[in-house]
Every structure is written in structure tokens, then in C-alpha cells.
């Protein structure tokens, strides 16, 4: 329905130093970010991190305690929810129980006083987009969970919002349906060309769907970037731990491109730290390989092995009693002496308490030399 409108590379939404507290409880602390039009954003964080609060501030259900919120260039702090060009898909769908599917989808258009004929057409289009053609006359109670989800999406997009908010929209679905909906949502976003802001606590969902991810914890944005950036170059311990599985080990940065962990020096691709600075090192389990004792950079004993269908989840305890998580498609034997191998680019070094700006500046500083 937005066909003909090409997404423009400009900021549809901006948060400037926004804070939010309920009574004495601070939920958001001095948050600033920008949202580009036409992209799929995900706010990812554990429950209680403040991600849903950000969504409620965008929708207008809650007011910011401090800071400014801009929408399409205008400050909207005082614009009530019913006059914002934003629509929401709620976690529990919040469908109106006394209306059938078509009436639910038509609600927003009727409120706006759109002509009856046009409403019918737009309801039909919206239902088509979520693959519910012909379901208009159904009662909500006669719909399955997955179908209700689609009705909720249709109801929101029928209003042609500039930004669509989705609050844990897939969490009530079973795993198979959820994965299917992830693909469909992504397609729908491309088709409509509008901005999606998706809130979830599920990191796989975030990685699979998003153009941009913002990781929220403790009322702050921990890191934002593309899924690949965040996965490969986590800024801090929280992000590394929250996104994917990881081995996080304390280490010391000897010099640029050389880090000491476990009493051994390893080549790496990180730079820009102070000499002998204490750091944390992240190595993803899938980047570690089991090899022979002779070839291994580290040597240890296999403690556990779990078959997970695609791979084996293996833990190896090294000579310094550190436990390594390894994901491998090759089977090994519990109790066996093995070597662990990895490449310099599999090592990612994180500084303690580095801000996102400093992190980005440092990365820019040495990546040019590559």
C-alpha cells in the first residue's frame, strides 16, 4: 500500500537525552539514538531492560521524564498517542473481542473518518498482505494464535503508519510458526518500505530479521549496529554474553595485535589499547576447532559432549582449569586429551568500560591500516 513511495535515507525518529522514571524507579537513563526511515530496527534486551518503555515513549502511551523525542523533524513529546503516525502490534495482540476480523482492521480508518468504500479496499489490501484473504467475516475467537497475530499486524498497517512498532510480537507463537513469521515480517517490511521497530528478548530473532540492532540493558543502549557488527565485535561483556554463545576470558593487551590469555601470548587483530592494559577476550564457540594435542594452541581434556542435531556442543577444560565452550560438527570423545586451535581473527578483544563512541573511533583508527 506504500508502493510508489521510496524510502528516503533520513531520520524518521530521534531520541535526544531521553530519560524515564516511574516514581523513584529509573527505567531509561539519558538515551539518544536515531532511526532511519525504511529500515528494520530491533530493540533487544532482557526483561526489565527498558526496551518496552522506549516503544511506549515512541507510541505515546508514556511521557518522557526528560529529553526530547523527534518524529519526522518535529518534537512530539506532547503529541498524544492517538495523533501520532505510528501504529503498534501488541504482545497479546489486543484485538477487540466484540468485533470480527474486518471490523478490527477497519477500526483505525473508521475513527479517522475514511470513506466506507476506501475502508473496504484498504482492509482487503491489509488482509491480503498478511495472507488472510477472505477471513474478514471471522470472529476473533474463531482464529488461531498465528492468525490473530496476522490480524493484529493487518490492523496496524491498514493505517499506513510511517513507523510500525512490534512489542514482543512473536513471543506467544510456537517455535516453528515464529521462525516462519520472522521471514514474513522481514518480507512485509521490504514490501511496505516503512520503518519497523521490533522489541524482543530473543537474540536469534533479532539477528535474523534486523537491519540494525540496539542492545538495551539497565536502561541504557549498550551497543547498536548491524547484526554482523554486533555479533563479530561486541563492545562489552554484556553484549558478548547476550548475543550468541561465547567464551569470555580476562587477558592483558601486550601490544597492538598481541594479547596474553591464560599465560600465553596470541596474535590478534585488535589494536589501539594502552600497553599491558587489562582486557576481556571473546572467542565464539564455533570459531574454536578440536585438533590433535600437537597442533593445538591450547591443550585440554574433553569434559562433556552434547549432540544438538547440527553440531556437537563440547566443553574442554584446559591445563589452567579454564573451561572452553566449543561447537563442532566433528565428534570427539569425553575424557580425551585434545588440542584447541583458532585463528588470530577469531579473537575479539574488549576494553573495560569503553563507550560506544570511543569503540567506534578506535576501530576506525586501526582498520584503515589493514
Amino acid at each position, binding site marked *: 500500500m506504500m508502493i510508489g513511495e521510496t524510502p528516503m535515507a533520513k531520520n524518521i525518529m530521534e531520541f535526544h537525552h531521553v530519560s524515564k522514571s516511574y516514581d523513584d524507579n529509573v527505567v531509561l537513563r539519558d538515551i539518544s539514538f536515531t532511526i532511519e526511515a525504511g529500515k528494520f530496527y530491533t530493540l533487544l534486551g532482557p526483561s526489565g531492560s527498558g526496551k518496552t518503555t522506549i516503544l511506549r515513549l515512541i507510541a505515546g502511551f508514556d511521557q518522557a521524564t526528560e529529553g526530547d523525542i523527534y518524529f519526522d523533524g518535529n518534537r512530539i513529546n506532547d503529541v498524544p498517542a*492517538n495523533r501520532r503516525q505510528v501504529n503498534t502490534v*501488541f504482545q497479546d495482540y*489486543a484485538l477487540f473481542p466484540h468485533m470480527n476480523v474486518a471490523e478490527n482492521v477497519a*477500526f483505525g480508518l473508521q475513527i479517522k473518518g475514511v470513506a466506507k468504500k476506501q475502508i473496504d479496499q484498504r482492509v482487503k489490501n491489509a488482509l491480503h498482505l498478511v495472507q488472510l484473504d477472505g477471513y474478514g467475516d471471522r470472529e476473533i475467537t*474463531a482464529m488461531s494464535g498465528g492468525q490473530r497475530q496476522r490480524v493484529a499486524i493487518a490492523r496496524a498497517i491498514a493505517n499506513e503508519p510511517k513507523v510500525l512498532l512490534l512489542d514482543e510480537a512473536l513471543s506467544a507463537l510456537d517455535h516453528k510458526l515464529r521462525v516462519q513469521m520472522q521471514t514474513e515480517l522481514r518480507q512485509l517490511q521490504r514490501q511496505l518500505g516503512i520503518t519497523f521497530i521490533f522489541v524482543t528478548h530473543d537474540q536469534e530473532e533479532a539477528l535474523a530479521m534486523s537491519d540494525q540492532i540496539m542492545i538495551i540493558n539497565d536502561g541504557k543502549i549498550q551497543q547498536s549496529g548491524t547484526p554482523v557488527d554486533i555479533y563479530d565485535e561486541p563492545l562489552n561483556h554484556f553484549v558478548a554474553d547476550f548475543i550468541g554463545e561465547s567464551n569470555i576470558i580476562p587477558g592483558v593487551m601486550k601490544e597492538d595485535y598481541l594479547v596474553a590469555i591464560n599465560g600465553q601470548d596470541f596474535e590478534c587483530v585488535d589494536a589501539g589499547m594502552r600497553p599491558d592494559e587489562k582486557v576481556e577476550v571473546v572467542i565464539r564457540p564455533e570459531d574454536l576447532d578440536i585438533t590433535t594435542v600437537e597442533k593445538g594452541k591450547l591443550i585440554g581434556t574433553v569434559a562433556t559432549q552434547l549432540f544438538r542435531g547440527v553440531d556437537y556442543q563440547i566443553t574442554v577444560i584446559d591445563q589452567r582449569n579454564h573451561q572452553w565452550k566449543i561447537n563442532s560438527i566433528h565428534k570427539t570423545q569425553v575424557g580425551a586429551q585434545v588440542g584447541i586451535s583458532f585463528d588470530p581473527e577469531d579473537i575479539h578483544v574488549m576494553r573495560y568500560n569503553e563507550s560506544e563512541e570511543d569503540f567506534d573511533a578506535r576501530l576506525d583508527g586501526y582498520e584503515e591500516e589493514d
Partner: protein
Amino acid sequence: MKKHHWSWSAIYLTFVFIILYAPIVYLVVFSFSSGKTMERYRGFSLQHYADLFADSRMITIVINTLLVAFLASLLATIIGTLGALAIKDARRPWKNSLLSLNNVLMVSPDVIIGASFLIFFTMLGVRLGFVSVLLSHVAFCIPIVVLMVLPKLNELSPTLVDAAYDLGATRWQALTRVILPAIAPGILAGYFMAFTYSLDDFAVTFFVTGNGFSTLSVEIYSRARQGIDLEINALSTLMFIASLLLVIGYYIISKHGGRRHRIVVVREGDAQ
């Protein structure tokens, strides 16, 4: 063995229903007796019904009673529904005390409520009559409505109002187009309950009716004191039939009134 059990429970149930309905049946049967008392049945007659319809005082009282019940339950439904909405939105300490105040009124004896209204109206100088009866009926019907509506409100998803705002509705539109239609079954049930409570109330009404005004229950009581008149049997029979129709009507409305109960053909596909 199983059959034996079943028949015992059937006998028990029959026994209970006989005890419950025997007095009413007895009363109904004698309303058609041609005699003047309930001592012996003396052949079929509609004389008492003829007397009843000729008794203009009684007809006036019936109309008054229905009018009070209609108005009292209507006002109580409006106030009670708004009250339930307020209780739902109230914050924690307030919510509990409001609900307790509501429930206290439900369980406190009618005699106390009646007496306190009598004192209250006398103090304010309100003349006892239609207005005093109506006001007191509204008062004791409100808690009933609140108790019928509140569970329906609690069933609603808390995001329903947010969803209405999100789609552009004002507060008023959210209330009238989303909340009220969604809790309509509760409001309807509350209205019917309030209506029946008002219709058959004796204790409260007895205190606050003045000289010129009376309702059925009070009138029947005062006539019964002067000796049973079979005209009352005729009236009670009509009342019983009326309430029976009311119950059947409510049953039909609640069973088939909601569109949601329409049978829909489930399509093939992802319907589970």
C-alpha cells in the same frame, strides 16, 4: 449399580424441587379457586383475576413497582458501570478500599440499610414517597452492578485501551467503541440482577415508603396481615409468570445475542 446411584440422585433432586416449588404451585392453584379462602379448593374460577384488574389501587402499585425497578436498575447500571471503571483504574490502596466499601453494602442487612435511609431522609427533610424509594433502590442496586461488571473489565486485556488510542481513538471513543461494547454482557447481567433485586425488595422499601406511596412487596405484606385475600394469589401468579419469562428472555439473549457465538466454518489451513 450405576443406575441405582443415578436414581437416588434423581429422587433427591426431585424432592428438593418439590419442596422449593410446592408453596408456589399451591398458591397458583388457589388463585383459580372460586372460594374466598385457602382452606379448601372450590372449583375453577377466574374471579380473583377479575377482582385484581378491577382493583385500581393494586394496578397503580404494580405500575409504581415496575417503574421504580426500571428506573432504579437503569440509574444503578449507569452509576455502577462508571464505578466499576473507576475501581478498575484506581491505584492499589484506593482500589482495595473502594472494593471493600462496595462489598460491605452487599452483605450488610437490608434492615440496617433501610433504617439508615429512613434516618437520612428524615434528617434531610426528603418527603417519603416515590423519590425516597427510588433513591434507596438505586443505592442498594449499585454494588450489584459493580460486582457484575468488574469481572468483565478484569477479563479485558490491559493493552486494549492502548490499542484504541494507538489507532487514533480519543478517550471517549475508546470507552464507547471498545470498552463498553466489550463488557456489554456484564452490564446487561448487572441490569437484570438490579431489576430483580429492586422488584422484590421488601425490607429497605418498608422503611422509606411514605403514606401515599407503596410497592408490591409492602402492599402484599400489609394486606396479608389483614387475612389472606386470594386476589394476592392471582397477583403472585402473574408475577411468577412474569419473572419466569424474564429468566427465559435473559437466557435467550445471553445465549444467542452475542454475534461471537455464530457458527463459523473453519477453513483448511493454519487454523488449529
